[in-house]
């Protein structure tokens, strides 16, 4: 009877020890899996951070590109408005300039003026098409030196005064 109890106790002890060992093995395997998962998560978080940083940079670039275009549009609108003003300038007597009347009165000088302006306008088109600026155009800073038809693209160093 006593030996049966002893055997039973040994079996229980062995079973407990075996169970404990198995549990330990399972927990160890789970821990390894968790570690691996953690590494993957960390890598994924780093990847996401890089994606977010890239998106932020892209967004900044898009804003900058839009701002550049808007700025250029403003300058072009101002130049167009200046052309309109040249045709419809109001003189000291409050009269609107009439280029037709002026051409009748002073044909030669108006002819010279419009031919000069046309030459400048043609050069503006060449520049708009990608023609490189000449040294003279680059260095122009005075009103007398600039291409008055399109100073924003023809004379980068000219500051209107």
């Amino acid at each position, binding site marked *: 009877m006593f030996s049966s109890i002893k055997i039973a106790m040994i079996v229980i002890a062995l079973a407990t020890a075996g169970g404990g060992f198995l549990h330990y093995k399972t927990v160890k395997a789970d821990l390894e899996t968790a570690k691996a998962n953690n590494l993957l998560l960390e890598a994924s978080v780093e990847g996401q951070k890089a994606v977010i940083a890239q998106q932020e940079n892209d967004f900044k*670039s*898009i804003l900058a*590109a839009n701002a*550049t*275009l808007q700025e*250029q*549009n403003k300058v*072009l609108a101002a*130049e*167009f408005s200046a*052309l*309109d003003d040249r*045709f419809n300038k109001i003189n000291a007597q409050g009269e609107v300039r*009439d*280029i*037709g009347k002026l*051409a*009748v009165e002073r*044909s*030669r000088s*108006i*002819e010279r003026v*419009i*031919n000069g*302006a*046309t*030459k400048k*306008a*043609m050069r*503006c*088109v*060449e520049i*708009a*098409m*990608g*023609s490189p600026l000449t040294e003279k155009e680059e260095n122009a800073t005075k009103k007398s030196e600039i291409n008055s*038809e*399109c100073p924003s*693209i023809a004379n980068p160093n000219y500051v209107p005064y």
Partner: protein
Amino acid sequence: MFSTEVERAPLNLPNPETPKLEDLRWTIITSENAAEVFAKMQEQGKDPVLFGLSDDDYELLSKNFAQIRAYMIQQGLTLEQYRDYYEPKEETGKENAN
């Protein structure tokens, strides 16, 4: 099955060649100087004919021209911005270095 994203090769199209525009000359003709202008043209061996615009139409032509020019500038700048965004110079440098 794994797939690797392959970046598209940059398009890198060159800009078209810039043409040199021809000079043209306006002639102002009025009822008073018409005879003189035509006589001068004949002296220069030109056909005594002019393709005319009224002063208002000349003004409109100038404005149309300015609009076209502005549009070209905007197009050029837009293209430049696209290039800077999709084909930045630094990346091209890296590619060349590799």
